[in-house]
């Protein structure tokens, strides 16, 4: 049984209110999902709070998981990403990484969250396709995905007009999709 099948099985067991399956699911996925939340929110206390809500939600909505629509890890990651993006929308005083320290740590001709892109192993197609994007497109997409930046935040961070950034994102995504489809084995 591969990882996805095992996780799917655990989710169905959770839908039947099987507590030991829930605890196994947590053990199998929490480090990955906590990593995702921590990366977006940059604060352990926030990431913990979001993850707590997400697992409660996964337990409550396990019956709604449709294997035909998404792989289990994708489904759970999307729950976490969505919750993080909602969290980042909350009005608040503190903004993580507001001054773009992450960007300043990396040479400007490289995508911002370079560490992650470097680590895209097992996903060579994605890596190759990210490499085919123009610098601005790649940077905008990586910052949006990893740091949860909105269009206007991207514009501020990249010091470019809003329209430029929006078009980088739009064209970058289209190009990424075309490239990934070409890479897929027939």
């Amino acid at each position: 049984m591969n990882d996805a099948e095992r996780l799917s099985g655990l989710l169905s067991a959770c839908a039947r209110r099987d507590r030991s399956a829930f605890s196994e699911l947590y053990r199998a996925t929490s480090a990955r999902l906590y990593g995702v939340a921590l990366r977006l929110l940059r604060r352990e206390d926030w990431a913990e709070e979001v993850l707590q809500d997400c697992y409660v939600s996964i337990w409550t909505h396990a019956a709604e998981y449709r294997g035909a629509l998404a792989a289990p890890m994708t489904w759970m990651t999307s729950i976490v990403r969505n919750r993080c993006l909602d969290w980042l929308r909350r009005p608040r005083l503190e903004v993580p990484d507001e001054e773009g320290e992450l960007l300043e740590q990396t040479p400007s001709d490289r995508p911002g969250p370079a560490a992650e892109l470097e680590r895209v192993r097992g996903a060579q197609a994605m890596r190759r396709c990210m490499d085919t994007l123009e610098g601005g497109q790649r940077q905008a997409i990586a910052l949006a995905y990893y740091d949860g930046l909105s269009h206007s935040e991207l514009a501020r961070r990249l010091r470019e007009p809003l329209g430029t950034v929006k078009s980088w994102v739009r064209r970058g995504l289209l190009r990424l999709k075309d490239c990934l489809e070409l890479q897929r084995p027939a």
Partner: protein
Amino acid sequence: MNCKDQPELRERLAAEYALGTLRGAARERFRRWMRDDPALARSAAQWEERLMPLAEAIAPATPPPSLWHRIEARTGGAAASKKDVLGKGFVWRALGLVAGGAAAALLVMAMVLPLQRPGVEYVALLSDPKTQKPVLLVTAGRRESRLHVKTLDPSIRVADASLELWAVPSTGSPKSLGLVPSADRAVIGLSAAADQALGNVPVLAVSLEPRGGSPTGAPTGPVLYTGPCIKDW
């Protein structure tokens, strides 16, 4: 949805939803559309799948053990394991945890004791048995009917649940001393003098309980922190 006949727009919205750049009211609206439009939901799911290798590149990080306890408490799991922590089982567990972290706790205590305000005759230092990190300092005067509680590690605070402080006697069942206050320093009132509440109590423990405290008067959730309670007189 008002863009059913605009496949390019639908595709773009689905992509930006998955990427996260679709924000605010537009994101909410898109979520509503997906509920009534399975094709749109599928398109968004495909984009999430497509971008998933980006998430897989993020370094995993182990969340603190307390997170699982909180999730268990909120999903009703702690109540299911109630028997494990009730009464004697609880005492045994709390004592066991203290034995594990006792050396570290006593060492910290040796440093803390001389710093205490005058009139302190009971001192308990509770720590996380896994990390041995001290989290809570509880002190009292013998004849005072209140406990002074100082939170040493603010990260122990939990949302949607309460931390309850228990006196674990050498025999008999644990008695609640009240909820761990949310302030860094606070006072918990006791129904009698500290001598009576703590005289025969070698250990204090904190359990995770539903908001407002244990509904039964006995601990129902997991034991998160424990520490020896020392008489300094």
